[in-house]
């Protein structure tokens, strides 16, 4: 099972509603993935900064963390709290230093990093997860989300999607991979590390490795067709938009709706029914084994 929702806005007037639209898309997908949920939102950038989304334990000393960052980086750190996550803006020329500071806090995880991407994920009913992070108030140009029904690894926050594949890049997956152990071993030999036993994290790592070898996103997604065995529909978020790939036998469902204002991806049409203009949208099923991309120009 699992459910995926992706939303790409062509019309800037809808940007304030991005989060509330995504929350309404994820809600009916609870039936397909009730155990965890997560989303990546591509919002405004802070020039000269990279945003880190950090996951904190309930007892975290946020002030202590911010003070350490300020002391080491030499300037106050803008931050936003969203439930168990905090987004901090790190000066782009001091990222390595910030990572060293964060490494000293053993219970704080870096969920994602990017100029525009923020990632939030947690165990729980999708509606509760959306509420906890305040998804409904988030704005931006595009977003992808996931509701999980675990098959290949445990129900944990680390096992929830999206998985980040590099700055401003993330992946969500519906399906299950059958050769993820072998692919993981190959990637570990290449120097990648993994946090979980999850098959989808391997797919994310595979994309990361291809991109760092110099492949374009299109090429990296196409190479999934040769190297990954199993069932998958992937949605891969980038700073400019998102891409979609279904396995060649199309085991997992997928629907796309397109209007003059937006492009929306849903595992089922039920995820799309509240979008503006849906009654007159072009609604279609992406072909198997074919890379689709929608990006800002």
């Amino acid at each position, binding site marked *: 099972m699992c459910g995926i929702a992706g939303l790409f806005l062509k019309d800037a007037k809808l940007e304030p509603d991005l989060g509330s639209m995504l929350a309404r898309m994820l809600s009916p997908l609870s039936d397909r993935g009730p155990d965890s949920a997560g989303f990546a939102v591509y919002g405004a950038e802070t020039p000269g900064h990279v945003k880190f989304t950090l996951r904190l334990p309930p007892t975290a000393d946020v002030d202590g963390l911010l003070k350490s960052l300020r002391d080491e980086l030499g300037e106050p750190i803008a931050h936003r709290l969203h439930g168990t996550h905090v987004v901090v803006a790190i000066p782009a020329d001091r990222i390595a230093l910030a990572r060293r500071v964060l490494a000293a806090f053993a219970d704080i995880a870096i969920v994602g990093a990017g100029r525009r991407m923020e990632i939030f994920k947690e165990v729980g009913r999708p509606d509760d997860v959306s509420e906890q992070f305040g998804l409904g108030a988030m704005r931006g140009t595009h977003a992808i989300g996931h509701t999980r029904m675990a098959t290949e690894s445990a129900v944990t926050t680390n096992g929830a999607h999206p998985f980040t594949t590099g700055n401003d890049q993330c992946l969500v997956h519906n399906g299950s991979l059958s050769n993820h152990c072998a692919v993981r071993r190959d990637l570990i030999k290449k120097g990648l590390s993994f946090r979980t036993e999850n098959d989808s994290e391997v797919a994310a790592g595979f994309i990361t490795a291809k991109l760092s070898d110099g492949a374009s996103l299109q090429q990296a997604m196409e190479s999934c067709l040769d190297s990954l065995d199993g069932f998958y529909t992937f949605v891969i978020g980038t700073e400019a938009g998102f891409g979609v790939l279904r396995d060649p*036998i*199309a085991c997992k*469902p997928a*629907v796309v709706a397109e209007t003059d204002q937006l492009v929306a991806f849903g595992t*089922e*049409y*039920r995820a*799309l*029914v509240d979008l503006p203009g849906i*009654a007159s949208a072009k*609604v*279609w*099923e992406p*072909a*198997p084994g074919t890379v689709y991309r929608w990006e800002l120009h």
Partner: protein
Amino acid sequence: MLIVDLARSSVRELNAGLHRLAPDSNETHWRVRNPRGQHSIAVGLEQPVVVEIEGHVGYYCAGMNKLATVVVEGNAGQGVAENMMSGKVWVKGDASQAAGATGRGGLLVIDGNASARCGISMKGIDIVVKGSVGHLSAFMAQAGNLVVLEDAGEALGDSIYEAQLFVRGKVQSLGVDCVEKPLEDEHKHELRRLLDAAGINGTVDVGEFRRYGSARKLYHFHVENVGQY
């Protein structure tokens, strides 16, 4: 005409109302509003009623249909008209995977495209797709007819038994044991009947179709294959 608004009633209530109908009921015309992609709308109907659905439906719409006519004024999700026994299901948009799966009778008409595995394991249903069908359509098809006015994807008719396949456009590839067969007058006559039933009267030249069916090589064990086991 009865109108059921699925924004106010549940699919279960709609289906229960349809299942309660007696054979001589006067409630023969139903309209369903706000389907919003919900699953299992108008399944298991057993009376000769007409059910029109205003919009896109989810999975298994009109499954197990008997005698009824179900019209989907939009797209249908997976398994539309699965295991249909008789009657007619008409999808005015596209259909997702496994349309008409295991259908035993009746007519399924899809105005748009059908995706993968259309007519999988069909057992007597007639399916007319005005667009194209995806890969592995008519997989293990046993009886009935699949008519495709445009193209067919990979592995058409893989492991087919005695269903007949008619395709007007390009076939990407034929599956195991599926071969082209001559289109004789009797087949053109049958094709004309199917196109007429689908409401395509005289607008399509039946001579443009190619016919496919079973080579019947998988029917029996061949002793020369003994080494394979």
